C-alpha cells in the first residue's frame, strides 16, 4: 500500500456515498433521540414539580437508573433484551423498519432525558423563590408566572449544561454501532475493511465528528449569548 492519500477515499464515489449515509443515519439518530429526550425531560420535570406524591420517587428512580448505568449497557438491554420480549407482531414490524436505529433512538433518548431533566431542574431551582412571590403579587397566576417569569430565567440558567449534554448525545450516537445501526462509525469501519486505508478514513471520520461537535458547541454559545443579551435589554 502506498503512503498517505486522502483522495483514495474522497474521490471514490462508493466511499463517499457510504460516508454520506453514515452521516445521515447519525443525524437521524441524534435528532430523534434529542427530541425524545427533551420531550421526556420536560414531562419528568412537570411530574417532579407537580404535587402528585407518587411522582417524585418515580422520577428520582428513573434519573438514578439512567445516570448510573452505562449508556452502552442500556442500549444492550433494549436491543438484545427487551426487543426479544416484545410480542411477535411488534417485533416483526420493528424488524422491517430498521429496528437497530429505532432502539438506538429509544435507548439514547431515554438515557439523555434523565440528564436533560436534571439540567432543567437545577436551572429552575437557581431561580430565587422571591421571583414567584413577586410575580403573584403583580397579579400573575401560577401558570402565567411560570410562563413569563420563572421559565425564561430557569431555561437560561440551564443552557450551559444543556448544550454540554447535547454535544455528549451527539458523541454517544456512535454507540449505536454496538446494536448494529449503520451510522457514521459503522460506515467508517466498513470503508476501512474494504479500502485498508485505516489512517485516512479514521482521520476523515474524526474530522466529521469534530466539525459537528464544534458546530453544536458554537450554536450553543450563540444561543446563550443571545439569551443573556435579551435579558440585559429588559
Amino acid at each position, binding site marked *: 500500500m502506498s503512503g498517505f492519500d486522502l483522495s483514495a477515499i474522497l474521490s471514490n464515489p462508493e466511499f463517499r456515498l457510504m460516508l454520506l449515509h453514515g452521516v445521515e443515519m447519525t443525524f437521524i439518530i441524534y435528532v430523534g433521540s434529542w427530541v425524545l429526550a427533551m420531550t421526556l425531560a420536560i414531562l419528568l420535570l412537570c411530574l417532579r414539580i407537580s404535587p402528585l406524591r407518587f411522582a417524585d420517587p418515580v422520577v428520582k428512580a428513573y434519573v*438514578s*437508573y439512567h*445516570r*448510573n*448505568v*452505562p*449508556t*452502552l*449497557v*442500556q442500549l*444492550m*438491554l433494549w436491543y*438484545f*433484551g*427487551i426487543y*426479544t*420480549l416484545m410480542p411477535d407482531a411488534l417485533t416483526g414490524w420493528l424488524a422491517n423498519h430498521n429496528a437497530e436505529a429505532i432502539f438506538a433512538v429509544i435507548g439514547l433518548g431515554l438515557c439523555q432525558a434523565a*440528564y436533560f431533566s436534571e439540567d432543567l431542574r437545577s436551572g429552575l431551582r437557581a431561580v430565587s423563590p422571591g421571583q414567584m412571590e413577586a410575580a403573584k403579587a403583580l397579579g400573575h397566576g401560577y401558570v402565567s408566572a411560570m410562563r413569563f417569569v420563572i421559565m425564561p430565567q430557569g431555561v437560561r440558567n440551564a443552557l450551559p449544561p444543556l448544550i454540554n*449534554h447535547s*454535544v*455528549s448525545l451527539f*458523541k*454517544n*450516537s*456512535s*454507540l449505536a*454501532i*454496538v446494536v448494529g445501526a449503520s451510522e457514521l*462509525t459503522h460506515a*467508517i*469501519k466498513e470503508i476501512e475493511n474494504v479500502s485498508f486505508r*485505516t*489512517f485516512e478514513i*479514521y482521520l476523515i*471520520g*474524526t474530522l466529521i*465528528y*469534530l466539525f459537528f*461537535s*464544534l458546530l453544536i*458547541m458554537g450554536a450553543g454559545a450563540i444561543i446563550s449569548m443571545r439569551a443573556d443579551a435579551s435579558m440585559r435589554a429588559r
Partner: protein
Amino acid sequence: MMIQDIVNIIKDYWLLLLIGQYPNGPLGGLVNTLVLSALAIALAFPLSILFALARLSTFAIVRWPVTALVYVTRGVPLLMLILWCYFLVPLWTGADVPSFWIMLVTLVIYAGAFLSEVVRAGIVSLGPGQMDAARALGHSYMGAMRYVILPQALYNMIPSMISTFVSTIKDTTLGYVINVPDLTFAASQVNNQLLTQPFQVFLVLALVYYVLCWTLTFVANSVEKRISRRRAGPVNARLPAESLPLKTLTEQL
C-alpha cells in the same frame, strides 16, 4: 419466573462475572473493570495536572498543542478514540498489544483531557490573589504552584475526581468493541452460553453497574458536602447542606 432466572444466572455465573476466566485465562469481569478504571484514573491524574499547567502557561508553544488535544478529545466520540488507539498503539510499539492496554491508553488520554479541565477550573477559581501573595512571599512560579495553588485546587477537586472515576467505570464498557475482557464482555459471554435469556443477563449487568456507580456517586456527594462545609467556615456551619450549590462536574457516558 423471571426472578428465578436472575437468581440462577447469578448462582451459576457469579465467578465468571467477578473475575472472568482468571486462573485459566486473562483476568476479566468486574475485577478487571475496576482495575482498568483505577489504573486509568491513577495515570490520568498526573497527566491532567500537566495538561492544566500547560493550558495556563504563558508560552503559546506549550499552550496551543495541549488546548487542541483537549478540544479534539472532547469533540470526538470515545469510540473513535478507541479505534485510533487500536490502530496506532500496535503500529508504534510494533508488538501485539493486548486490548486491555489499548483501552488503558485510550482511557488515560480521555480522562486526562476531561480532568485537566477540572484542574484548570479549580486553579482559575482560586483567583489571582493566591498566586500574587505566594510570589510576594518569595516563591517561584513552580514553587507557588506546588505549595500554594495546587494543594488548594486539588483538595476542592476531590468530588470531581470521584465522579470522573464513575464516568471512567462507565467508559470501560466501550472496551466491548475491541474485546477487552471486562464485566460487559463477561456478561455477553454468559449470554452466548445461555442464548435464551438475554433480558435477564443484561438486567443483571445493569444492576451490577448501578450498585457500583450509585455507591461511588453517593460517596462523591457526601465528600462534596463535607468540603463545602469546611470551606464555608465555622460561621456558616449551621447552614443547611441543601442551600450549598453542588457543583460536581459530571461528564456523562
